């Protein structure tokens, strides 16, 4: 298992198109990917490969998220996704 925390910087957060982009990238990896949000009262454990799940995470701008992966390509998966979030998800 490998994990990393990062801050959501783009304006819309992990919503709509940015969320779909995140899921699209997640699906390229074999590892199981889980995303959680710091201070989430509902403590949602989002499946990184499910759009509905990522939307339900409600990660708006400035929220801190933890990306965890478990599997053969876990390091690459987490690093790629964290970099994607840091880049502002194309916004």
């Amino acid at each position, binding site marked *: 298992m490998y994990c990393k925390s990062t801050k959501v910087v783009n304006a819309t957060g992990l919503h*709509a198109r940015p969320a779909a982009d995140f899921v699209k990238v997640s699906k390229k990896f074999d590892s199981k990917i889980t995303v959680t949000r710091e201070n989430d009262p509902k403590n949602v454990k989002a499946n990184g490969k*499910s759009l509905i799940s990522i939307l339900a995470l409600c990660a708006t701008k400035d929220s801190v998220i933890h990306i965890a992966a478990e599997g053969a390509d876990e390091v690459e998966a987490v690093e790629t996704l964290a970099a994607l979030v840091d880049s502002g998800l194309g916004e």
Partner: protein
Amino acid sequence: MDKTQNESISLKGNPVSRGIAAGRVFWYEPFVPDIKECHIEAAGTEAALRKYEEAVAAARKELQDVYESLKEEDEHRAGIFLAHMEILEDEMLDEEIRSAIGESLSEPGWAAERVYSNYAKLLGEMEDELIRERAADIMDVKNRLLRCFQGVPQRNLSRLPGAVIVAAHDLLPSDTATIDRENVLAIVTEAGGATSHSAILAKGFGIPALLGIKGLKDALGREEAATAACEVPGEMRAATAVGNVLDEAGAGVAVVDALDGVLIVNPDKDTREHYFKRLGKWEEEQRLTREFLRREPLTKDGVRIEIGQNIGSAAREALAASGYTDFVGLFRTEFLFMEKESMPTEEEQFVAYCKVLKAYGGRPVTVRTLDIGGDKTLPYLEQEKEENPFLGNRALRLCFENPCLFKTQLRALYRASVHGKLQIMLPMVGGMDDILRAKQIIGDVKNELAAEGIAISQDVKVGIMIEIPSIALLADVVAKEVDFASIGTNDLCQYLLAADRMNPAVASYYQSYHPALYRLIGYVADEFQKAGKPLCVCGELGGDRLTVPVLVGLGLRKLSMGGSSVCEVKRVLSKMTVARMEELAAKVKACKTDQEVRDLCEKYMENTLGND
């Protein structure tokens, strides 16, 4: 038929798509799954999982079929069904349903019901409107899936029993997207807001729609309206149905007034007569509008005026007018920059420019380079706070200061130039040195692209906006240097009259009918005519019914405007000869005040349209 059935009921609703309709009401009762908590034996999990998989496969096939049947005709509507397929195959929903079956031993229908509803509720409670709309999609897919479980055939609105008003508690995205457009007179629902899928689709189709009508079902329930609707013969055309209904009356009839937001069930004689007249007027107005929309823009004596469109984005709706306009007179590129958190890449810009160029085929598309500053700012571009931003570092001036910004845009434009007929227009030009400096940078960009082996069109025209009085007064010199020019009347007016158009305190000094403005435009038009260079007006005045004849009278033959003004302008042009417009223009130049010009134009307009 007893008396209560003829009682007239009036209900208020939210008119999300304008129009008037009258006819019989068809109450649509979509498939509503009736699922109760139900469990299975541990030994039955495999069979239950198979049942779930079969239902998913059946639902997927339905979605695939609708998608295929729609994709040629309407990419946007087809996209709804693609999104539904994604939901159906969502990894988490799938996993949770499987575990509810395999571990909690839920009956598969109950498992799907619970998992889907749970997430629809979660998303439906979110602040973000776009996400809340996804909740409607999830419920839509859930209903489809549960229906497939039960082996119930699809129920939708793709075949209506004749021309009817469709009424329902709520319409799901898939209902509206596949609605029988030949026969739907109007849509009325109990639920729904202005931003819902149904509202957007109804507007796109031009179907009058009244949503959020409280007590709709009760009001219609009394009428037994749904059965009445089925008796309407299928071949009856929508328009005749409306007329007949208002003429003859009858039970189970309603009037949808999606102008004022009222639904009248079982209208009495007076109401029917009132709406009969109102409908006639509305239809006449619509007919006139439509008639002129696609007409060739000719003056009464047959002089061809070129009509352009101003657009602010590359969206489908913005490009809808490409079928009945000659060119794009102003493509504001700010939207590409203002909607973003960071500067749009060359590639993003390239895609947007290509889209517009392709939509207009070989016809000219005039792209204005970035016009930021003044009232518009960019979050990622630091700008000094200025005392007078409109007189400050804006548009071309700002681009000179940020050559990177400017060059990226020019690169994207030239790369796109091979896909259509591109014209590049520079805003906020004050003197010849601005033009020469910009041309130098354009030359550099072209050389760079050539060195990289990237193909560009050799036929890109470069022109300017005329919005600063100094450049207008140099029209004779400028006309020799540029390929074309376009008068931005909003800014020209504010700079000429020294009245900030954003400042309400001086609103009365911002006089767009000021005679000085027309003298100046007349001078520019004369000089461009002498030089044989094209000149256009792309400000508000270009689409103003009162000033259009004046502009043509001053010598303009190209006008560019917002899509909604096109019909009216074409109609006004068709009523006047050029000689009469020249006579008007000469009088306008001799006027003393803004009010005098306005009165004169109105008088001419009245005389002209009055003689129809």
